[in-house]
């Protein structure tokens, strides 16, 4: 290595050693490989549909990221989403004439309320978040199913129907069918951008990182821990409500046991995106890439004509591989920094 411009070199290495860059490279490599096997994969139609189907996981993931960054953990968000969508569905069926804005507000409020409840319990019981939220997962979901008997909801008003087919950018394919960038994807991206700006440019966001990095130091720096816990878990609750709403918009049904049990899909995406499970680090870009990676994988396996029975093997192997790559490169980066600064 030359010593001409060690600073610039380090900056370059920092860039390539960055989790987001590595993930992007992994993603690009994967896309190239997939396209080589089945060229149909890369069509815009398929890509838009990947985005659409990843949108609710993507929304959950953004919320989950915030909680993770703040040093927390929450596995109850699927149950929160289910309760939220159920509440919206019930109201919609009971009052079909309710104003759309009001109807869509319901899941968000329910989500925020339940998310904040998590925060309050974690704060006042000073208990490990994973335990409190496992408990609440059971409570929220169990009570919902118990009270409603698990009835499926469908037959929502007309306006509700066409939502996902509202395109921001639309094209026509050879058959003359419209496709494009659905509003729903835009909702996801909007949440991502808002969260990204919040995390980087707002004091509140920086305080979440601070809390996740050193809770005691955050307390001493005068941060109102309870308030920001409510903020983080409440935001995840909001995202859970929004994700639940989006899920209902896409599927046109509320089936209580579809989301619950898929918590780890979201956890996997977020940590694949480079967020530390111990808090204090993680970025929105990384999270979006993590969600994208898993979505591309699950889409590509069918398109590449891989027999269904092998899908999970692939997913498992790729998850382990990506985590290994990001972990090792993070270690390498740290050593590089140390060496550089020791000079």
């Amino acid at each position, binding site marked *: 290595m030359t010593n001409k411009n060690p600073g610039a070199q380090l900056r370059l290495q920092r860039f390539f050693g960055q989790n987001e860059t590595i993930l992007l490279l992994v993603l690009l490599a994967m896309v190239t490989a997939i396209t080589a096997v089945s060229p149909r994969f890369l069509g815009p139609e398929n890509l838009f549909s990947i985005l659409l189907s990843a949108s609710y996981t993507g929304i959950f993931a953004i919320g989950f990221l915030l909680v993770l960054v703040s040093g927390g953990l929450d596995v109850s968000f699927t149950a929160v989403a289910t309760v939220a969508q159920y509440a919206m569905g019930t109201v919609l069926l009971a009052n079909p004439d309710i104003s759309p804005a009001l109807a869509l507000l319901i899941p968000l409020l329910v989500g925020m309320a339940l998310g904040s409840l998590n925060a309050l319990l974690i704060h006042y019981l000073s208990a490990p978040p994973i335990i409190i939220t496992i408990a609440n997962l059971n409570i929220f979901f169990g009570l919902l199913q118990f009270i409603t008997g698990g009835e499926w909801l469908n037959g929502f008003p007309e306006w509700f129907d066409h939502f996902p087919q509202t395109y921001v950018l639309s094209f026509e394919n050879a058959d003359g069918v419209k496709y494009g960038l659905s509003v729903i994807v835009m909702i996801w991206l909007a949440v991502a951008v808002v969260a990204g700006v919040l995390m980087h440019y707002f004091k509140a966001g920086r305080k979440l990182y601070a809390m996740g990095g050193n809770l005691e130091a955050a307390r001493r720096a005068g941060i109102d821990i309870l308030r920001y816990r409510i903020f983080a878990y409440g935001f995840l609750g909001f995202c859970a409500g929004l994700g639940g709403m989006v899920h209902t918009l896409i599927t046109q049904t509320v089936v209580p046991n*579809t989301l619950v049990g898929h918590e780890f899909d979201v956890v996997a995406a977020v940590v694949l995106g480079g967020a530390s499970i111990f808090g204090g680090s993680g970025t929105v870009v990384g999270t979006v890439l993590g969600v994208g990676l898993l979505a591309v994988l699950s889409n590509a396996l069918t398109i590449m004509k891989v027999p269904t029975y092998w899908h999970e093997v692939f997913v498992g192997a790729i998850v382990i591989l990506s985590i290994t790559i990001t972990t090792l490169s993070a270690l390498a980066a740290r050593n590089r920094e140390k060496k550089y600064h020791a000079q």
Partner: protein
Amino acid sequence: QSIPKAKIKQFSVIFVPKLVGVPWFNSMTKGFEDYSKGSNIKYTVSGAANTDPAAQARLIEDAIAKKPDCILVVPNDTAVIEPAMKKGMAAGILMLTSEASTIVNAYADIEFFILAKEGKDMADIFVKHAGTKGGYAVMVGGLTNQGHNARADAAVEYLAKNYPDLKQVTTRLEGSENVQEAHDKTLQLITAYPELVGVLYVGSAGPIGGAQAVTEKGVQKRVAIVGSAVPSQAKKYLLDGSLKASYIGNPYLIGKDSAYIIERMLSGVKLEDVGNLPQFGAQTVSGRVITFHADAEVSAANADSFGF
């Protein structure tokens, strides 16, 4: 009527469905209860919150401890519950199953469709809409769902034998219990296999997701979506033509006839002597399996008559 009330034998029956909190089994339970209204049979439901076969085996063991007169199980996995069933029989309980024709440790198994007929009917309906040439795919709720696999096997076998030009494009997919998953997988199938003429779904959410997918891609005419959808949910899609046909039984009526069979057995009637059923009429008994056929094609016109 002159028998004093205290002397009437009260029978207790525990119903262990695959899982609770889903419309199908809610409706079936209602069938049991409505049939037995005013009779001396009392039903309780004891089902797991998920389709984990191990969880179901645990529930059966708990149910046995309750010493009921009869336990009816709709297993998630027949093999898994055999030992538990055996225990129940040893405890002198009338152990019955449904949708488990291969069960060994039961006094009777109630089948509400004839597997061969089911396969043939589903296949015939499918072919009616998808044609006899091209590629097709089959989707089940879960790859480990034995009931779904059996139905899919039956239909695939029939199609392979009778329509050799209709080829399965890939191995069985899973996702038919989840609208979004079925929707996504169907889109992927459409993208990957231009020769696709139809998708056959076993599992009630699948056809809905499939119908949404073909609508989105405007290929309702080219790709036929057929499967076992819940009629009330399916109606909309049957009307707009994105769902070609649904083939399913009516759980409420199935519940009523099952209750009838249980009632007869509890009062000492042999399985062979059960006779015609109130709802579905004819039945056949072979070994310990009693079979009637409840499944029927659902169309836009008759969707409301299913009542669920």
